[in-house]
């Protein structure tokens, strides 16, 4: 496994410190940098888990048709053109014509072939060879199949029942939404909107099913109570359970092979409960996908706003953390240095070194390199620190109980440069620099540095700034792995960087933080946590020292 750096997103938590790096549950707090967003207004990192998401447009993932939201509902969130999913393997189906009728001489008559082919048409899966004739589905025309299929879907008893239920609640819903529209708008959170429908539904549930406690929302005034009573009783048309279950039981009794039963994966994408028999599965219209607008959960500013077109990968607004926070990569120098020293002549050596670097041996001392890349147009001063204090869950002293001590205190020690170091500003020009030149220059610099600190023994130079090039600064750190260490070497690292916020180039900042921008030459500091994963400690077969 290659060493990695993940960034912490506090996800609106009031405690800015990240969870301990090793617990399995803490992984949800750490993300690769390129998956994170940045809210300029709040000056904070946001992740996919904490942003609020709105649909900005629907499209079919197959034909990429952009479906207007008005028809999304009518078409039941599925593609209304000619996109179908195989009920067997979920592959995309294609419409195929029947074989052309043979001419008298036995050859297919190419001349009078219609361009679309001969009816009847089938849906055919070119992956598993399922075809719709198996379920008695053929079409006279190769177009407008979705409408025919939807007609069939809509005639399902569950669908009819749902429609009737909707009709039943419609007037009530309209009445209540007009009176409490302001309230429901404010209530955008993940919490269930407490509206009269929920209340009515829960009271109906409590009445019909004994033992289900009545859901009582926060008291919301007299009007709701009255409205709840107004709603008339709904009588379902479909018998719950009923004959279908008996038929299914019968089917299961006579089962000979497991493949006769439709797997959950095959039934999952259906809107309504369908048959259990694999042989009777119907083709499905492909569910639509959506483009999403993402907002900051606290200030509601837009972080991501996609372009409308389904195929477009551009964004009207895209505030990603990679444009604000320094990008960090971590690596062990050994493999790279030796690769350079031995050149291509020592291919074997490189492989050896790589395998060596992938595992850390207990009791060893390993220098590592952290490369920081500054995305800002201003130079920054960065300070790194290991998060030493893992907040204790209880007040007990770690050393008091020997069993708990190893869990509490990591079995390795990490040294990082103590002082702040600069990372130069990003300049567009470097983007256009010829890649080969950049590469060559970098190689030279590493060479010079190597001479400077003279091999892995030069302990004085392993920790500190090793290299500065363009907007990248490489600093060295060192990890001392304990004698009886095992498991991953992972630690939380606090990164804080300071930059001048009054630079005329940083227009974004000027716009975003008017409150802090009153005094002109101000240094701003931003702090975030990362988790650095250096890899696993491999049990040492022998006691040779590194």
């Amino acid at each position: 496994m290659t060493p990695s750096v993940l960034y912490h997103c506090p996800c609106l938590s009031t405690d800015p410190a990240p969870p301990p790096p090793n617990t399995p549950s803490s992984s949800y707090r750490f993300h690769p940098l390129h998956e994170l967003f940045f809210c300029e207004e709040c000056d904070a990192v946001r992740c996919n888990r904490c942003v609020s998401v709105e649909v900005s447009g629907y499209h079919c993932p197959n034909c990429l048709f952009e479906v207007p939201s008005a028809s999304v509902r009518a078409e039941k969130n599925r593609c209304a053109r000619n996109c179908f999913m195989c009920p067997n393997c979920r592959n995309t189906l294609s419409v195929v014509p029947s074989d052309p009728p043979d001419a008298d001489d036995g050859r297919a008559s190419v001349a009078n072939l219609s361009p679309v082919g001969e009816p009847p048409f089938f849906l055919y899966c070119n992956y598993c060879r399922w075809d719709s004739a198996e379920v008695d589905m053929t079409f006279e025309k190769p177009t407008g199949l979705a409408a025919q299929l939807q007609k069939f879907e809509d005639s399902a008893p569950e669908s009819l029942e749902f429609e009737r239920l909707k009709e039943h609640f419609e007037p009530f819903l309209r009445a209540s939404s007009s009176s409490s529209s302001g309230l429901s708008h404010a209530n955008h959170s993940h919490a269930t909107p407490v509206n009269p429908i929920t209340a009515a539904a829960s009271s109906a549930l409590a009445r019909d099913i004994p033992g289900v406690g009545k859901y009582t929302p926060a008291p919301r005034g007299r009007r709701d109570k009255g409205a709840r009573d107004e709603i008339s009783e709904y009588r379902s048309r479909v018998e719950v359970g009923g004959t279908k279950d008996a038929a299914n039981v019968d089917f299961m009794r006579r089962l000979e092979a497991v493949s006769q039963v439709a797997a959950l994966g095959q039934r999952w994408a259906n809107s309504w409960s369908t048959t259990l028999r694999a042989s009777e599965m119907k083709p499905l219209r492909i569910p639509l996908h959506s483009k999403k607008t993402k907002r900051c959960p606290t200030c509601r500013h837009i972080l991501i706003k996609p372009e409308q077109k389904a195929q477009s990968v551009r964004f009207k607004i895209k505030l990603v953390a990679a444009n604000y926070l320094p990008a960090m990569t971590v690596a062990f120098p050994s493999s790279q240095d030796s690769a350079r020293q031995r050149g291509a002549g020592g291919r074997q050596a490189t492989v050896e070194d790589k395998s060596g670097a992938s595992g850390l041996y207990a009791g060893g001392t390993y220098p590592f390199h952290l490369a920081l890349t500054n995305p800002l147009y201003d130079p920054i001063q960065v300070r790194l620190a290991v998060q030493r204090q893992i907040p204790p869950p209880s007040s007990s002293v770690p050393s008091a109980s020997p069993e708990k001590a190893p869990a509490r205190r990591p079995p390795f020690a990490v040294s990082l440069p103590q002082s702040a170091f600069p990372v130069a500003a990003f300049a567009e020009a470097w983007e256009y620099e010829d890649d080969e030149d950049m590469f060559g220059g970098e190689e030279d610099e590493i060479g010079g540095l190597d001479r400077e600190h003279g091999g892995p023994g030069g302990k004085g130079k392993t920790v500190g700034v090793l290299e500065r090039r363009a907007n990248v600064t490489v600093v060295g750190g060192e990890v001392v792995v304990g004698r009886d260490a095992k498991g991953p070497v992972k630690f939380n690292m606090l990164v804080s960087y300071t930059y001048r916020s009054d630079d005329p180039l940083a227009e974004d900042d000027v716009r975003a933080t008017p409150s802090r921008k009153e005094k002109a030459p101000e240094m701003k500091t931003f702090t975030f946590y990362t988790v650095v994963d250096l890899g696993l400690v491999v049990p040492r077969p022998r006691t040779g020292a590194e």
Partner: protein
Amino acid sequence: MMQTPNYYSKAEFIETDTGNKVSRRATISGPQNIILGGKTIISNGAIIRGDLKRAGPGHAVVISLGRYCLVGEGCVMRPPYKTYRGAFNYYPMKIGDFVHIGANTIVEAATIGNHVEIGKNCVIFTIIKDCAKVADNTIIPPNTVVPALTLFAGSPGHFVEDLPESTQEVVEAYTKSYYTRFQPAER
């Protein structure tokens, strides 16, 4: 510092004026029908069938690859074909910029957009839009479209998840650094 060079033997690759690096051990049929955008790497054992061109005389572009592409070891790239009104024909294949295709993958796609990553051992018979990713060992049969910014995996390939919004930058940086690291051994 992370740009550890990935050395190859100089005799093994031909470098063109525009920085394409084509392995001598790759099979390039009909090279006059193939366009490489520049800084594209064709690895050992790759097969590119530029000879499968549309019926009719003269040259026609059969396969075009953009800049900073990688055709992995043992890949087969051949143009798609179709029988339309009884006539069999090959159709041109267009691959955008910053496209990496993993080892031993077979590609018979009409279009592959920009910034696309395709894994190892895949079979692709489809249209792939920009910034999509296909996981290793995926089979995508004809008629499926891989939409922009999605990850497809499985056999047959299914939609797995949406990719992050910054995929374009990530793939671009990765493919560029891959090319930069792909260095001849001095010898």
